[in-house]
Structure formats: C-alpha cells, structure tokens
C-alpha cells in the first residue's frame, strides 16, 4: 500500500510532521492501525537500525527517526490493540555507581523501534531497584548497562540479586557497554551480549519471540 511505504520512507528521514500527517490520513482512509505500525513504521525503523549498525546513518538520524516513530505511535495508540502492538517488555538501566546514559538511551530507542515496551529506570540504578521493577512489571528481558570497568561488578551483583529474588528464570538478561565483552557475559551468567544498540534490540526481540513461542 503506497501510503504505508510513504510512512516508512518519511520515518527513515525523520520527517515527524509528514509522518503524523500520513498516519492521520491512513487512519481516515480506514487503514488498520496495526498495519500502519507493523507494515509502515516498524519496517522503517528496522531499516534505520540496520543502517546505524552498518555506519550508514548516525545517532542524529536515529534520533529523528525515533522521534517520528514516537509521534506516529502516539496517534495510533487509541486505535491499537495493545496486545498486538507490543511484542514484549524490557526493564532497562545503567547500574549503580554509573551515571552514563547515552548508550542506554540508544538501546531504549532501538528496543522501542522493535515494538518492545521499555521501562527505563535511568542511571545509577541499584540492584534492588531492578529486582523491584522485574517483580512489578514482569518484563521478558532486563538490559543492564555499564560504561566503566569499575561498575561492571554491579552488573554481576544485579544478576545475583535477581537470582536471589527467584526471578532469574523469568527474564532474559542483556548486558552491554563499552568495557563489556562476550566472555564477561558468559562468565557472569547473563544471556545476551551485543556490541551495539541495534544488535542488542534485535537480540532482545529474538529472545522475546523465542520465549513466546516456547
């Protein structure tokens, strides 16, 4: 459908105003809100994520695409069946002692672009706050970020706290941040490490879909 293609293309260019106009037009023409999201907007965000991973576009382009996506989604929300529009939930945060938020925020945008609802706990998040958020929101995954080698130990401590709370089996745990590696991920018993935000979101989506299919 032409209008969905146009929505996707304008979303990729970050043209939020045009995206919202097109979304309004599509709704007025009777296009199902779910189609607008799944066929128009999310594939557009997927293309941006892939280009970002390949260094073809950069953070500014990702941000304006995400802004267009958010504004379009806001118009769609009243028309969407929440069960079909959101594939899963993720609790996200930078661990205790670490105030860095850039990488975390990029991951949040990429997760939202994949249709994953994000509960963003912010920065300097103690383990008990992650545990409480898991208990409250019952997410499919938890994403833990650290930029400093000195705060990587908090990732380990947070996973331990999740285990002690008896919540470990209910969530996939993603870890990331500049000093984090695949071997660290394995060593501490996390489930997923990816080196960039787009790959992390892809892996989170795959884990959620696998969990739902099981």
């Amino acid at each position, binding site marked *: 459908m032409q209008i969905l293609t146009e929505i996707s293309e304008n979303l990729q260019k970050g043209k939020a105003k045009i995206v919202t106009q097109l979304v309004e037009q599509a709704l007025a023409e009777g296009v199902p809100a779910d189609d607008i999201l799944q066929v128009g907007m999310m594939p557009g965000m997927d293309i941006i994520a892939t280009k970002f991973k390949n260094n073809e576009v*950069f953070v*500014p382009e990702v941000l304006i695409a995400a802004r267009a996506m958010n504004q379009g989604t806001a118009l769609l929300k009243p028309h969407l069946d929440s069960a079909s529009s959101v594939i899963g939930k993720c609790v996200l945060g930078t661990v205790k002692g670490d*105030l860095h938020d850039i990488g975390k925020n990029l991951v949040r945008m990429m997760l939202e672009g994949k249709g994953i609802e994000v509960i963003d706990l912010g920065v300097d998040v103690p383990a008990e706050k992650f545990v409480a958020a898991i208990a409250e929101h019952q997410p499919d995954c938890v994403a833990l970020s650290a930029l400093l*080698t000195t705060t990587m130990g908090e990732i380990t401590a947070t996973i331990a706290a999740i285990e002690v709370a008896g919540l470990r089996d209910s969530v996939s745990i993603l870890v990331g941040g500049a000093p984090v590696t695949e071997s660290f991920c394995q060593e501490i018993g996390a489930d997923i490490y990816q080196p960039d935000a787009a790959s992390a979101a892809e892996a989170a989506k795959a884990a959620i879909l696998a969990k739902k299919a099981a």
Partner: protein
Amino acid sequence: MNEHYFKAMTWDHPTELPISLGVLASFWFELGDEAFYFAKQYPEFFTNVPKDFEELRNRMPPRWRKGEWLDEWGCVWSNEFEGMDAYVTGHPVKTREDILTLQVPENDVDNLLPHGFMYLRLLDLRGFEEAMYDFADEADELQVLIDKVVAYNLKQVDYALTLPKFERVLWLGDDNGMQTGLAIGADAWRKYIKPAYAKIYAPIKAASRLLYMHTDGCIHEIMPDLVDCGVDMINPQFRANGLDNLVRVCRGKIPINLDLDRQMFPFATPSQLRDHVRECVESLWLPQGGLGINCELNYDIPLENAAALLDALREVKHYKG
C-alpha cells in the same frame, strides 16, 4: 612530557620508545599504602607520586571530587566516586533560543582547556539528545553555539600560550568517538567540528608549539583530519579503534601515543597483558618515531596485572625492531 616524546612527535628518531603512565587519583585513594609501595618499584614510570592524600586532593581538578560541581558554563558535573572523572548531569542550554542568549564565560584560568573543551562542550551544554537533534536538523543555532565555544577556547588558548608549562607543547583532550564510530558521522563532524578545531589550533601552530590531543572512542576515520587541524600527536584508544585500523591509518603517517586497552586491565591475565604490550609495539613501532605508549591505571586493576604491564613496558622501552 620528555625528550623522547618530542622526537616521536616529530619523527626525529627517539632513542627510546616514549612511555607515559596515567594514574587516576582513585588508584591512590583505594589502594593506599599498597599503591605507594607499588610505585616505588617503578620509579621511572611513577615520576609524580603525591606526598599524601591531602596533596593528591589539592592536585585534583574539582570535577574529580565526589559530589556536584558547577563549571564556568553552568554545566553541573556529578561524581559518584572520589578521584575519578565526573559526568555532566545538568545541561544549562535547554532550548535553541537559549543558545542565542548564552553568554560566553569570562576566562577561567584555573580550568584552562579542560577535557571536553569543544565537541563534548556542545553536548554538555545542550545534553546529548538535544545536541544530536541540533546536528540532525542542521539548526542555525548549532553554528552559533559552536562559535561561542570557539570564542571562549581561543581566549583560553591565548592565555595558555603565555604559560611556561606550554612552552613546547599544548596537550588537549576531547572525546570525539563512541565505541564503534562517531556519533554524528564523519560528514557532519567535518562540517561542524573540524573547522572549530582548526580555528582553536591556528594560534597554537602560529606560535610554533606542538599539539598533543587525546580523544577517546572510535576516531580512526578522522585522525588525518585532526592532523589537518594542526595536531602533532593523537592519543587514541586501542580497543575502540582496533589495532589493524591504527596500523593502517597511523603507522609511518600520524604520530600516536597509544592508549593500551585499559578496559582489559582488570580482567586479563598478566601474560595476556604482556602479550598486549608486545603486540602493540611490534605492530606500530618505527625507528623514526611516531609512537608512544600510554598506560592508565585505575584502582580496579589487580596489582599483579599492573606489574605485568609495567614490566612489559620496561622491556619494550628499548625495542629496536
């Protein structure tokens, strides 16, 4: 900075591989007596050991102190850990309209050309996301903001050039890269940031001073551009750039003071660290120079790992190929 560094920066055949050791204040605070004892074993690297914690605190820039600190631009720095660098959590320029009314601060001679003096300053003033929107929209106000930061930095450079400690070389730091590339991409960087550096560095070059620039992140793509701007030696990170890229871009072309992979220091074995040092030097060394090695110690490095690094550096200091 010793004579070997000057020779390495100018391809003048240093007789030794120049080596610099960066020691975060947290290393001393957290390791205490052990750190002081350790430093005594390597006096050639620990050339500026603090007498005591009080002297150390007096030496530290304000933003290394735990708590909050307001800088000359109105950015709020927050620090969770005494002796490590802080992070800007309060961004004073909330809107694009605010850019137009932003006053360039008076010279701060105590905080001369701090780490993050140009590119990071834009992000600190606006906040990361707002700054990225400015770049995405190619907002007119972005150039206004850049011009204000350049104007401030030019005043700072003018003052710095009068100081004896910068008689031969100025050293500056501004992290341009993220882990896998430039946040804004090379095209936008060349459009907005490169001209800003060129303007700030012009009086330094006009005064015939050498220019040493630290920049974290994946920046190999723009290293030749930094040289165009007047940089004589770049201090890049090993991991973010990758050794292959550094060899391709820099060996025999751009002098670097390579930051060893400090992100592996706490987790590697001593043997892996020795191999790491050796690999870097074997890949990048040339008799005419163009290479120095920088090693930064934080409190989370096991001292046996620190010893392995410094022992390896002792060995490669006299490397001749």
